[in-house]
């Protein structure tokens, strides 16, 4: 057992086998983890994220072909959120691509449905690029919450405070290098820190020393955190192979890029129009539709729920659902199950105003 896992297990975090590796799922106090990330600081072992280094003269070419994002204009220490698609534009995974320097990139993304990101990128056969799985070399920790910036600054140095969103930097710590990205999908300040496994335990201890109120968290609570701000959740939000345009992920696509996997199918759908869209729904107090529930308008099925839950911060049920395009607009009211009076309303995202929108780094 590695020192990181020992550290988090001692704090009640359960690890399970998943997607060909281990994942730090969470503790028995999920609400405590939620409160930490929404109100203070949560630290999570993110070994569930694939860490892949792509380098060489052909690295840019490979990533341009493989992903939907504009990698060409990515400058050193810039980070881009991208999609990897199948030829039929099925979403294989979401990922961050970090330009470490000329011809050198780090790709960080969830492992899902057995997708081996290293193998996937290697399959492009780009002779002038090397694709290296860094899971065994680099540990990954996330620091999230309205005061995550303070923990990151106090643990890693003042320069962290100047790190803008979708930027990365290298920090020297005790003779070692910690790679830090400012990213996140919970609506709170978020940092991903990568360092050699041999030094990760020291980093974790340092974080909790400078931020004793920080909580150990698992990945399971990310479902609710993502849902509350309608951040795309690959685990939940495309169960039937829904497409990027249906899921509202336009911002992750460089529409001017001439070639990438999935582009022909995506452009056809863009031309023809989407037939359904992912929308946010809010429910009357105390009730919420279940995942998979069909939604109705005037007795006609018009959509289905893909993720739902009770939001502690919103104080009511929330969900995301695919709804027929004609009715997928804020203000529309839908019922479920058929014939009942229970009514949900399509509303704008996010469902909650995060604390981080009020907290300013000082």
């Amino acid at each position, binding site marked *: 057992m590695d020192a990181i896992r020992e550290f988090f297990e001692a704090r009640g975090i359960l690890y399970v086998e998943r997607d060909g590796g281990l994942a730090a799922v969470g503790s028995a106090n999920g609400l405590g983890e939620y409160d930490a990330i929404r109100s203070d600081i949560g630290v999570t072992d993110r070994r569930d994220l694939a860490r892949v280094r792509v380098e060489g003269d052909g690295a840019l070419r490979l990533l341009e072909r493989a992903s939907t994002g504009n990698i060409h204009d990515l400058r050193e220490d810039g980070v881009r*959120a991208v999609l990897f698609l199948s030829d039929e534009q099925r979403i294989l995974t979401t990922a961050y691509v970090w330009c470490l320097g000329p011809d050198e990139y780090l790709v960080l993304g969830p492992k899902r449905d057995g997708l081996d990101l290293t193998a996937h990128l290697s399959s492009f056969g780009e002779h002038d690029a090397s694709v290296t799985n860094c899971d065994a070399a680099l540990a990954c920790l996330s620091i999230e919450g309205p005061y995550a910036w303070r923990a990151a600054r106090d643990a890693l140095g003042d320069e962290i405070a100047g790190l803008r*969103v*979708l930027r990365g930097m290298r920090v020297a710590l005790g003779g070692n290098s910690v790679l830090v990205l400012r*990213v*996140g*999908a919970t609506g709170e300040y978020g940092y991903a820190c990568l360092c050699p496994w041999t030094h990760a335990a020291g980093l974790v201890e340092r974080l909790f020393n400078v931020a004793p109120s920080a909580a150990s968290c698992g990945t399971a609570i990310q479902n609710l955190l993502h849902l509350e701000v*309608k951040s795309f959740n690959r685990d939940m939000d495309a169960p039937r192979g829904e497409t990027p345009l249906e899921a*509202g*992920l*336009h*911002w992750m*696509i460089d*529409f*001017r890029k001439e070639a990438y996997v999935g582009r022909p199918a995506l452009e056809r759908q*863009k031309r023809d*129009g989407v037939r359904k869209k992912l*929308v*946010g729904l809010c429910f009357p107090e105390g009730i919420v539709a279940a995942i998979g529930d069909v939604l109705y*308008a*005037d007795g006609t099925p018009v959509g289905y729920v893909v993720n739902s839950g009770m939001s502690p911060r919103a104080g009511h049920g929330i969900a995301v659902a695919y709804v027929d395009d*004609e*009715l*997928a*607009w*804020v*203000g*529309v*009211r839908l019922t479920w199950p058929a014939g009942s009076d229970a009514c949900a309303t399509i509303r*704008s*995202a*996010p469902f909650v*105003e995060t604390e981080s*929108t009020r907290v300013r780094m000082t």
Partner: protein
Amino acid sequence: MSNAAVAKRRRVLIDRLKGVLIESLQLPLAPEEISEDAPLFGIGMALDSIDALQFVVAVEEAFSCSLPSDGIWIYRSLNTLADHLESLPAVAA
């Protein structure tokens, strides 16, 4: 108001906002390449503060209204901006 009427009113407003966004910022995007729920700033469309100022001025001109400078929530996405505009009597009419 029927669902169809609500949807139509919202679609018209969003389409208009997309047009203002694209024109005011000279974005190399077509309306169907913008999602109304996408964050305008930060992890999303990544507009900057200069973009924000230009866009706000353009929206105020297009809708003959005054937008608050301290309502950060309003500018989160085109949908949240549309929510605010729909709440203004002059625009709602």
